[in-house]
């Protein structure tokens, strides 16, 4: 009799867990989710994969289950969650050798661009935080070497392409808050120092640090690495805004989306609604679009063409103090044919600003 009760309770427990998860999944059903399986998937044969992927990300109590597993892993001695090294101070993304750009081919897009357009071109490759904070990685941790790789890629560029060494600038400022603790990207502070030396090379006097009024827009920013690891042991980040009213004010912003839509964003660069949304980082440049054209009240006739990934989002507020027009092309959306998005002939300077990982993934 006792045995029978035991058997009943085992079956009950297991079916209960299944049922709870199932109900949780139905409750959190998200119509807008990217992974949502559709009929189209059924016809091209990927439906089974797609439903599984969707369930993997949207299963009921996903976060609780995820934390159970990641904490168990940390407990047995792994120092990494989902390809992100966990340290006491910050989360550092692991880069594989296949993630970083190849020496021979990496400079080609920039060279090609320069040879076609003959616009003075500047090139900045930003190393990842895991390279700058190498010493903070767990013992024996494997991470792709980037310092020399950046140098080698720079050597491959043709005359006329000016390369700016972000590595040395950032590594000398290691002790400052230059990278987010929970995100792969740099902070406004890190961006400022690179801007400072880049803009000098580009022929301007940088706006000095003292002229900026810095305000904390959010102290609860948890970035993409947090999303990936859901690890609570690292402090949340601060999103800063560098304000300087004395020079360069925006007059108009127009966003062009990949599907052909345009949006007039008035003169507001920052998107304060993002601060209460899921992706707080969108505060800097608003909803990602393929092309963004910014006009300012500076009338020096200088026009900048900026090819960038999301690292450059917080550099833009600094650049508007020097140009009458900035055209920002999002490489993450255009991929390899970034050439055809803009009529390059109007512009006087071009800047390529991208992180090592994104550059490697885009131009492999």
């Amino acid at each position, binding site marked *: 009799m006792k045995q029978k009760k035991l058997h009943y309770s085992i079956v009950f427990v297991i079916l209960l867990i299944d049922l709870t998860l199932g109900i949780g999944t139905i409750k959190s059903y998200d119509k807008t989710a990217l992974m949502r399986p559709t009929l189209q998937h059924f016809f091209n044969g990927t439906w*089974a994969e797609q439903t599984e992927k969707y369930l993997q990300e949207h299963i009921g109590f996903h976060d609780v289950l995820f934390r159970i597993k990641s904490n168990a892993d940390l407990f*047995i001695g792994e120092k990494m969650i989902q390809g992100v090294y966990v340290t006491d101070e910050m989360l550092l993304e692991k880069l594989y050798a296949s993630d970083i750009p190849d020496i021979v081919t990496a400079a080609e897009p920039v060279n090609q661009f320069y040879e076609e357009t003959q616009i003075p071109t500047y090139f900045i490759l930003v190393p990842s935080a895991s390279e700058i904070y190498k010493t903070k990685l767990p013992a024996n941790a494997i991470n792709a070497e980037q310092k020399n790789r950046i140098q080698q890629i720079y050597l491959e560029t043709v005359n006329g392409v000016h390369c700016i060494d972000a590595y040395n600038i950032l590594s000398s400022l290691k002790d400052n808050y230059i990278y987010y603790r929970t995100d792969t990207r740099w902070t406004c502070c890190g961006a400022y120092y690179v801007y400072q030396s880049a803009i000098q090379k580009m022929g301007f006097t940088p706006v000095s640090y003292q002229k900026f009024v810095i305000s904390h827009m959010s102290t609860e920013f948890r970035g993409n690495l947090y999303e990936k690891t859901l690890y609570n042991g690292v402090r949340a980040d601060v999103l800063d805004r560098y304000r300087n009213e004395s020079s360069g004010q925006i007059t108009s912003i127009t966003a062009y989306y990949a599907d052909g839509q345009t949006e007039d964003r008035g003169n507001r660069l920052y998107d304060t609604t993002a601060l209460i949304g899921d992706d707080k980082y969108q505060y800097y440049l608003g909803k990602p679009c393929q092309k963004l054209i910014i006009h300012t009240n500076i009338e020096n006739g200088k026009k900048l063409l900026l090819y960038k990934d999301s690292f450059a989002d917080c550099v833009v507020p600094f650049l508007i103090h020097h140009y009458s027009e900035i055209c920002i092309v999002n490489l993450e959306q255009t991929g390899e044919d970034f050439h055809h998005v803009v009529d390059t002939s109007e512009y006087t300077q071009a800047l390529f600003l991208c992180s090592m990982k994104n550059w490697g993934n885009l131009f492999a």
Partner: protein
Amino acid sequence: MYLSSFTFIVVLLPIILVSYYLIPTKGKNGLLLFWSMIVYGWGNPFRLLYPAACVFFDYGIGLVLERMQNRKKISTIILAFSALIQIIAMTLIRTMVQEREGFLFPFGIAVYTLQGLGYLIGIYRRRHMASVKFLNVALYIFMFPVIYAGPLMTYLEYQEQLEKRPCNIMQLSKGLQLFIRGLAEKVILADTFGYIFRELRQAGQMSMLTAWLTTLSFSMYLYFELLGYTEMARGLGKCFGFQFPKNFSHPFFTSSITAFLQSWNVTLLLWFQTNFRYFLFRNFERKWQRYLFLILTWAFIGAWYGLKIQFIIWGIFMGILVSIEQLTGLDKNFIEENSGRKGYVFGLIYTAILQQFLFVLLFAKNLTEAGTIWKAMLSFGNGIADQTGFYFFTSYIALLLLGLYIAADLFQNITERIAVTEIGQKLFICEPLVYGLLFLFCLASMLYGERMTELWLKI
């Protein structure tokens, strides 16, 4: 759909179980076939075409063989012909489809081809009658828990269970327990070892430590993957009232290669012994012929795992080693009773090293790569340890030891020993809690990381 997917465990499993227990006994077999079709053809019904053709073919040929029983020559020709057709079809599908479009690949093809052949050979040898009931043949060849990785069974064992089998709460609970243990082996152990293995493979030059860690993690991965799948199949079978045989009986920690192979994928070896040997071995009396066919059998088993030259070479090596052991009597020398503890330990070490060396063949891309890995395992050319090896060694040593502990029969011994004590009896009350937690942890592991979404072995 794979058994270790959310789609199966969270969505389908409860529905399958509830419907199975609600339907009257008469309809149970039909329902099982229906669910097998749903599970196998999930998202891609075209995948069902080939196995359906197999089932119809075997059913028909089975009836013909039964008729022709008295005319040995004709039935031999029919059997040889139908076996040839199925083997050729399987080979073609495995080589052609698998490279191009993964989702079209009718997984488990090697399993149900062997089941079908076993059925025909059984009739030919008059071990059992051809079944008039189409449903029975269909279920024997094509029942969803079994098609992934076995265990293989003869129709003789299956026949009775198909007609009459127990169906009560005890079966269901025992079955679910077994299923969860299998799931844990697959998603907690095998997936993690698979992850370590893939990470280590990305390291460029291999030091000695890395090379050994790679093969060790691979062998653990392969073992727990196959074991996990068969245990899940056995568990589900039990839920439905079936009694499937064990497929592995602790193959690591054996004292000779012969013993290792006798406990590795047991049902597959048994299939080859009963069916393949029947035709070939019977007629050969001489010793060298016996050994030649032993080697041939293992070459076939290698080819069954995957149609690559390395796999076949792996099989041939295994066959040669077993032959040598049997010729020299080594396999008996290392058993504890015969040669004492010293000989036994020596046997353990010798088997472990050889089996690790041979596992390299199962994962190397080609023979040259296998050569470099062997070289790294033997020499200090690239140093004793490097950063990669060191990182994974320190991070996963606990899990590797746990894996080895479970792979040896130590874990089973300890649970059995506790179970008979008085406290152990009382501890049984915790069972639901333990299995609930284990199940939760399995589900948590399934969320995590890039899992191996497909079986490494395309059987």
